């Protein structure tokens, strides 16, 4: 039957193809490997707004019932507004993260241009198909994200003090506002990419684009962290929204909801108009930039950077300080160059750096460390104590994640051929590289501040304990590491996303604060320091010795076994295919 089905129009066929492969990029070894990860991601985020339903929270059940029982409507409506802005912020953040995730699929890739070059397809058809795919994806994603909040909100925010208590009106208002916010964020990011394409000089484009991605990732994460404070805005803060929130997109779309429900307050009317204009503007700007950029973009893709950054024959690198062994230096060179030049790896790594920066900024905002002079000392104390371990907990897994993604997998033959000569040296180089790229910068920043705040001895005690704790985290994360970074095939989504996020929440929300509190106390008390030192050093040493057992002897892995995936054996078939594809380059 399939063979007899006529082909559709070229643009439509292409759009269908692009939509099916939205998540396939250079991130994984072969096409389709991201499907389990994406399914996990969508399963997690589609009902994400349910997190904000207070009735599901055992500590907040009856919250709205109590407000409805009050004689005046204002506390109820203020609480609804805070929750509504929280929902819209969460949906915007989730949409933004996904848009960044598919950033490279929003515009045609070099592969698209080359693979379609010999076919009767015009460049503008490729662009139109990409745009159509991005539009369908954005619309579908926004609808998926919107559905549950739109179903829940009428019940959650309904009652006698609601502006319009009918279920249908509340559903339409909520769905429109949430869908608009999601689509706006998606197209705003697509437009940002278009602006970069049109404005940034060709030779800087890839670098600037990745940095912008990282900044946006950090900004979105920071916004996500602020979410929980938004929900708890008291009545006075909600009253002050016109003073501080008039240029905040979630407030615009909250205005859309208010307007649709019948609130004719001029401020919310203005916000609704702003939301509508922003949405239309983002879509129109994206369309315009697509049209403007397609010629330039083809040139950018097909002609590529003319030269790598000026590299004199013998250049000094700080990494040279780490070893004089040429084999170790080879690995440093390979790792640092890949992280710096491979777009995918740079994007992943910068996203985690953005995450660490977001945690730092969030901590600073929470404690007023950077802005409130009367609390500056206490705030900085908190930062020096909390941030090094929190950053370690983000950057170490981040670098591990980036290093697991292969770079030009078939090119790893050169390492396979030389592995036996220098396996131990390579592994040592990888260890040092990780320390140099994660732990060293964190402590180079933290130590002077710690000394300035606490004086030499307390700072030394705290830093020693923090470094040992960081090293223990390294040992735990790299316990079974048996591969050369960027040279092994990768099966994403082996651990369910819920587990990954729960792990981060547990570590950043419980383990790191608890350990930091002990370390802070040990900084002030020499006795406590000597008690805590063996308690931290012993697990680190044990993990270190366990990792080093047989270290440098066992052959490195070049294909991800992917054998720990509980997926009814479906993944196993994929792994075999991927293994064949991975070795295909070797055995062809």
């Amino acid at each position, binding site marked *: 039957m399939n063979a007899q089905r006529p082909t559709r129009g070229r643009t439509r066929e292409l759009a269908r193809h692009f939509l099916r492969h939205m998540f396939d990029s250079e991130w994984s070894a072969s096409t389709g490997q991201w499907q389990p990860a994406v399914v996990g991601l969508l399963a997690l985020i589609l009902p994400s707004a349910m997190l904000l339903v207070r009735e599901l929270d055992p500590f907040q059940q009856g919250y709205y019932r109590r407000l409805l029982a009050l004689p005046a409507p204002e506390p109820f409506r203020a609480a609804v507004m805070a929750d509504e802005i929280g929902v819209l912020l969460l949906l915007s953040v989730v949409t933004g993260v996904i848009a960044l995730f598919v950033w490279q699929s929003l515009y045609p890739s070099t592969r698209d241009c080359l693979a379609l070059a010999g076919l009767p397809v015009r460049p503008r058809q490729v662009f139109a198909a990409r745009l159509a795919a991005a539009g369908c994806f954005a619309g579908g994603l926004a609808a998926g994200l919107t559905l549950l909040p739109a179903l829940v909100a009428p019940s959650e925010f309904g009652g006698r003090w609601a502006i319009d208590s009918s279920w249908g009106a509340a559903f339409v208002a909520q769905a429109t506002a949430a869908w608009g916010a999601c689509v706006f964020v998606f197209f705003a990011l697509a437009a940002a990419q278009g602006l970069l394409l049109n404005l940034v000089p060709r030779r800087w484009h890839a670098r600037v684009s990745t940095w912008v991605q990282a900044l946006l990732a950090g900004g979105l994460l920071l916004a996500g962290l602020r979410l929980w404070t938004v929900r708890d805005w008291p009545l006075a803060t909600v009253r002050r929204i016109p003073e501080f929130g008039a240029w905040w997109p979630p407030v615009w779309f909250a205005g859309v909801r208010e307007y649709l429900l019948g609130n004719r307050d001029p401020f919310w009317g203005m916000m609704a108009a702003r939301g509508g204009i922003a949405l239309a503007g983002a879509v129109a700007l994206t369309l315009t930039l697509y049209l403007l950029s397609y010629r330039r973009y083809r040139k950018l893709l097909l002609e590529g950077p003319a030269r*790598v950054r000026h*590299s004199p024959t013998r250049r000094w690198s700080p990494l040279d300080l780490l070893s004089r062994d040429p084999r170790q230096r080879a690995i440093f060179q*390979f790792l640092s160059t890949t992280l710096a030049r491979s777009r995918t790896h740079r994007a992943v790594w910068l996203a985690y750096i953005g995450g660490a920066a977001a945690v730092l900024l969030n901590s600073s905002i929470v404690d007023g460390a950077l802005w409130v002079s009367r609390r500056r000392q206490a705030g900085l104390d908190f930062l020096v104590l909390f941030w090094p371990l929190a950053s370690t907990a983000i950057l170490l897994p981040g670098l591990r994640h980036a290093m697991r993604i292969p770079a030009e997998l078939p090119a790893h033959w050169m390492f396979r051929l*030389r592995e036996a*000569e220098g396996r131990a040296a390579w592994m040592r180089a990888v260890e040092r590289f990780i320390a140099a790229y994660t732990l060293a910068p964190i402590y180079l920043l933290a130590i002077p501040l710690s000394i300035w705040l606490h004086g030499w001895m307390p700072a030394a005690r705290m830093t020693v304990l923090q470094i040992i704790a960081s090293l223990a985290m390294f040992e735990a994360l790299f316990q079974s590491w048996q591969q050369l970074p960027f040279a092994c095939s990768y099966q994403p989504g082996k651990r369910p996303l819920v587990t990954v996020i729960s792990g981060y929440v547990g570590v950043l929300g419980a383990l790191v604060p608890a350990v930091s509190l002990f370390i802070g106390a040990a900084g002030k008390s020499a006795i406590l320091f000597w008690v805590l030192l063996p308690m931290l050093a012993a697990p680190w040493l044990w993990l270190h010795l366990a990792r080093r057992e047989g270290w440098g002897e066992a052959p490195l892995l070049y294909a991800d076994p992917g054998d720990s995936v509980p997926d009814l054996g479906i993944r196993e078939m994929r792994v075999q295919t991927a293994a064949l594809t991975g070795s295909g380059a070797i055995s062809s």
Partner: protein
Amino acid sequence: MLEVRGLTKRYAGVLAVDHVSFQLAPGEILGYVGPNGAGKSTTVKMIIGLLDPSEGAVFYRGHSVLDDLPGFQSEIGYVPEEPYLYPYLSGYEYLELTGRLRGMSAPDIASKIEEFLRLFSLWDDRHTPVASYSKGMRQKILLSAALLGNPQLLILDEPLSGLDVGAMLVVRELMQGLAEQGRMILYSSHVLEVVEKVCSRVLILNKGRVAAHDSIQHLRETTHHSSLEAIFSELTRESDPRAIAGRFLEVMGS
């Protein structure tokens, strides 16, 4: 002396290489030829240790290469069939990485890279990313990388692929020069004219099996053909090329 004894490879039950045996003496260039899918590249990958053989063994200077694989690998220079390189590295950086992985000293690496790149007319493009290189330029980088460690055994899988005529002549002369210095060269190729000119002996592989293994002169005498191409056709051809081409034309016009 390189000795390959009964080398066999099976992929999921499919026999790719079937008991291939040959010897390669110092100063010798062995032409390793065969149709597509005959198992040439698989044999090469088993010899250099990228693939584990299902059966058989490889001996170098009388010892199994598995006794000291790193030692064996440090003596070989390899040019793979496909020019797989890290696209974001420049040609210079790739060679520098190769030299460092071989444990060479920095001045040695720098001087050799400069000479090689100048000889291959790549010096001006040394800081250009490999992604922007043509196939021939990539091939020159791979050849330079193979020669960088001053190897005693060269395993070249289609080394002339993508090279211009001038570079092909250089590589041909280079192979002969290396052989005169007593180095061993296993030269796998489809370009039979070059094989005929530079190789002292030839091994023709067909469907994973050795179809012929002799000096070209002796093969000419025994098969009564004047060229290697005719010998190769007789030993490996299964259907008439003219008939296949005719069928193509028929299908295109239908």
